[in-house]
């Protein structure tokens, strides 16, 4: 099955690495209690995605730069998201004096 187990590093390596990073990030986002930590883990997941994009750029479309440009946009959005997300956390904290997600079950009616 693993027919070309050479030392050569290919796209699959990067994809597997990013999968693992994504998994770690997902685990954190689902399992951490602190809202800041959830944000942090989302950043991890976004980084995993970016690794994918850059790897595709390198191995699939090196001349078009689509992957890299997309990655830049992801970073842009991520930056915006962190800014707004943290602002929300601070606003919530001001109201509730807590950033523990277990305390927030307002979605239940």
């Amino acid at each position, binding site marked *: 099955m693993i027919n*070309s187990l*050479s030392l050569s590093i*290919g*796209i*699959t390596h990067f994809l597997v690495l990013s999968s693992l990073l994504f998994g770690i990030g997902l685990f954190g*986002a*689902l399992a951490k209690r602190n809202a800041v930590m*959830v944000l942090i883990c989302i950043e991890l997941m976004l980084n995993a995605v970016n690794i994918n994009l850059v790897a595709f750029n390198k191995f699939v479309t090196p001349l078009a730069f689509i992957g890299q440009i997309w990655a830049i946009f992801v970073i842009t959005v991520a930056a915006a998201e962190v800014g707004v997300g943290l602002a929300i956390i601070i606003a919530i904290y001001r109201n509730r004096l807590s950033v523990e997600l277990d305390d927030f*079950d307002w979605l239940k*009616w």
Partner: protein
Amino acid sequence: MVEFSMTHAWLVPLLPFLAFAVIVFLTRPWKMLSALVSVGAMAAGFVISAYAAYGVFTSHSLIEKSLEYSVRWFSMPGLNIDVGVKLDPTSAMMLFMVTLVASLIQIYSIGYMRGEKGFSTFFAYMSLFGASMLLLVISSNLLEMFVAWEGVGLCSYLLIGFYNHKISAREAAKKAFVTCRIADFGLLLGMLALQIIFGTLNITELGEKIANFELYTNAATLTLVAVLVFLGPIGKSGQFPLHVWLPDAMEGPTPVSALIHAATMVVAGVYLVGRMLFMFLEVPEAQQLVAVTGAFTALFAASIALTQREIKRILAYSTISQLGYMMLALGVGSLTASMFHLWTHAFFKALMFLAAGSVLTALHHKADIWEMGGLIKKMPVTGATFAVGGLAIAGIPPFAGFWSKDEILSLTLSGGHPVLFFMAALTAFLTAFYMWRLIFLAFFGKEKPENHPQESPPVMTVPLLILAFLSLVGGLVGTPWFPFWGEWIRFGEFHHAAPDYTVMILSVILGVIGIGLAYKMYVKDVSAEQRLAERFRPVYTLLYNKYYIDEIYMWFNHTLVDGAAKAMYLFDIYVVDGIFINGIGAITRDTGSALRVFQTGRLQNYALVFFLGVLAVAVILAITGPAPAGLVWGGVR
């Protein structure tokens, strides 16, 4: 002018209608102006009617074939309804009579209604009534007639309820409308059947088609249709058993009672049967029903009138009774006699009602005849004119009522209905008795010191005098020796029957005996009624309580109708809503609360489930996607 009047007969109902609109929208704040508009429109209508009637009664061709013109009201495939004018001697007579009586009564109303709050409104309603009634008279189409028929019903409702701040007036108005509505249900069904069977509602066309009705349907169906159509007149003309509304209708102002509930609207039923007589003559059973209903109603209402105490109620029962006569005449197949009685009755009954109104005004609406007495001394005109009416209705020659009643009696006998003749003759006797009971008690005898009657102003007495004159001479147009009436207003061939002196003398004798008995009981020996009442207590109570028919209806209404209503409503709340609708709702809600456990409200929880879903979708895609090409580690193939 004659030509114009005949081709523009539609102006006659239109003018009062315009008067109605003008009063409602423009002149309501100015009382006298409103009254003038109303009276003016009606008087103009009278002029046109008079010319039209002159035109009709001088052209012989119109007896067999009426003058008709119409416009399309609405139409669709299979249903064309025209509105139009059907001018023949009958409708010309009605036009003339209605506009004449209505004009007089409206003039009288100016005096009678003086100082009332709703003076203008009253005249607006009166105009609307006039418009509807006149439309009814000239209708060439049954549906058009039905529109007017309901229109007069509406005006009757509004005018009975004119003093609607009184509960009795309000209930009487409602009763009148609903009772007539029940009757109209039959009429409506009959009309539907006629339209479906014969494909038209035009009266003339119906006449032609029903003459050969075997081409369209069988006799049994036509009988049923005729009976259904007859239901309408039963209600409108106060025939037994739907007469109950008419006495109560006396809650309205007296001019209303005179115009609507004596002279014009209530005869609409008679008029309708007269218009459709061709149908009733085709089916003898239905005709029989008309005759029996008429005769029975006449006797029945007269018997109730014997014991009543309120002046207008007595007149109302008398009206019912006289309407019974008209129906009887139609039932024995004579349009002539029926219309003749309608004509004379309009004058003397309107006269009596207006005179009664004059009395009521003088006595500040004290209505019990036992509390009156000797009024003729203070109110000579009113008393005298009322007496003229009394003579007319009692059938004393040469007053109008004699000629028409005599004709009905003789036709009933010659038509081979001895039982009906006996009933009619008995009614004639009772009529003379109870009417003169009223007159003797109210106008003769001892004056009551607590009453301070005063004669009414000329605006009221002049119409009384005119009507009294008409009651005196109105019948002369149809005496057995000079049958002008029968020559013109008839259905079928004109037969000039020889004067039947037996019946004539009998009817006069009955009338005289009735008056004499009343004189004996109420002038000579005032306590006679008391003694009779004591002796025949059950009969007296039964009659005084109008055979308890109102009570039976009330019981029916309160237990059956309201009971059914309550039952349906409870069914709706508890079964349809309670069990089905809210039951389904409850099931949904309970399922919801059971499933609520899964709703933790925690975002991460949802995200977890969400990713489980993503995973599931990915797995499915991985399994069903393109077959794996083998795992490739580290490279590009």
